[in-house]
């Protein structure tokens, strides 16, 4: 049992603070096509973390700030947090170093996932808005943006899902909440293509001992694959609902 600041991060029964088992993901709720204005949009809730994603594109390059690429599409991401999303009120929703870094990470993740060679000299915008932050913000953003891209009909090499993992007294934990992240151990964030198992982005908050890294990595990858199963089901349900109104399920 690890106790920190009076919290039992892993109880004797093997349960976490919110009652989850170490290998259990938080409850995921999704909705596709939430906005009419955007080409694709999605909303995801992972536990108490709530993220909205909107995709615009592919379209012409509008600004001179980004230079068009003759071979690939330019992926433009913006990560923004609502001022009321965190426990302590944020001064600025975006533009600070952390948000810019997150935007860059999202850009890298989706440049590796979108079939960029299909839309040269064009631009795809991905805007994510964190409405409530309770740990795993980057992961929820990646998952929401994947759904939004699917909703926009943009071809992807594979889904890209993301998940966090940590280590608590020899037990790997998956899907870290905010409380566990601030009072617990090092956090590993992983974004991967679930079907091929290829890692797109990997980030660690602190260093892991080399002996522990493989098992934490496995747990995170397993989490990514489980999230993929959930997202895929949501996409298929959404498409069949939309299609049912024009009789796709009837022959």
């Amino acid at each position, binding site marked *: 049992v690890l106790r920190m600041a009076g919290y039992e991060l892993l109880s004797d029964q093997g349960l976490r603070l919110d009652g989850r088992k170490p290998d259990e993901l938080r409850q995921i709720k999704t909705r596709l096509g939430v*906005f*009419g*204005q*955007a080409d694709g*949009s999605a909303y995801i809730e992972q536990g*108490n973390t709530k993220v*909205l*994603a*909107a995709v*615009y594109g592919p379209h012409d390059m*509008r600004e001179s700030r980004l230079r068009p690429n003759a071979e690939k599409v330019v992926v*433009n991401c*913006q990560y*923004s947090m*609502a*001022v*009321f*999303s*965190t*426990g302590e*009120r944020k001064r600025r*929703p*975006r*533009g600070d170093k952390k948000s810019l870094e997150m935007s860059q990470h999202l850009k890298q993740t989706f440049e590796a996932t979108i079939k960029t060679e299909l839309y040269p000299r064009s631009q795809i*915008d991905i*805007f994510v*808005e964190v*409405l*409530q932050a309770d740990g795993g913000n980057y992961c929820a953003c990646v998952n929401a943006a994947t759904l939004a891209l699917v909703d926009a009909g943009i071809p992807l090499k594979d889904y890209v899902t993301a998940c966090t993992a940590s280590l608590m007294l020899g037990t790997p934990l998956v899907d870290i909440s905010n409380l566990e992240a601030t009072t617990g151990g090092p956090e590993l964030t992983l974004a991967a293509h679930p079907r091929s198992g290829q890692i797109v982005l990997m980030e660690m908050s602190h260093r892991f001992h080399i002996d522990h890294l493989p098992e934490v990595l496995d747990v995170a990858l397993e989490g990514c694959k489980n999230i993929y199963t959930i997202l895929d089901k949501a996409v298929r349900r959404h498409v069949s609902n939309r299609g049912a109104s024009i009789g796709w399920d009837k022959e």
Partner: protein
Amino acid sequence: MSTLVLSESEKTFILHGVEQNFRVDGRTRSDVRPMVLETDIVSHASGSCRLRLANTDILVGIKAELEKPLPQHPDRGRIEFSVDCSANATPAFEGRGGDDLAADISRILASSYESPEVLNLAPLCILPGKTCWILYVDILVLEVGGNLYDAVSMAVKSALYSTKIPVVTVSAVDGGEPELELSSDPYNHSRLSIQAAPLLVTMVRIGN
């Protein structure tokens, strides 16, 4: 935001319809579009509201914090408005693109709520000249489908209605600073009286 370009015949069509009290979506000149309102949706905030007026989507979160009152009003609480136009609404709002519109909306809200008769901030004062409640009203514009100012004012009023201010007890410590104690009971809170909170109404003239 609308990037619609209308032809002359479309404009004439709209004009003639309005003259006959018939708008493009079938409404009369005084009809309002359907509205969906939900309060208490942001758990971190003291009060919140989500308003959906047809295609316009506004999310308001209100946080109550303890601050020093303004020197010119030592016996009143404070209220501060901040608006964020999300890039979700339109790519033009990316980065600082929506800042002008945001500044305009917060300016109008600040001036509407300036008078003490509109929203009485006196109950928010705890220790005159030392401590008071400050309400940070944060508005997030998620989608713009017309009638933005009206929707924002309605959402703000609803969010203020749902705001729960924790009860504070002041205990005077002998020879020292008075101590403030926030009630730990989540059901022990006070609410604001928003009877006189303003609603904005936008009118448009088409033709004559």
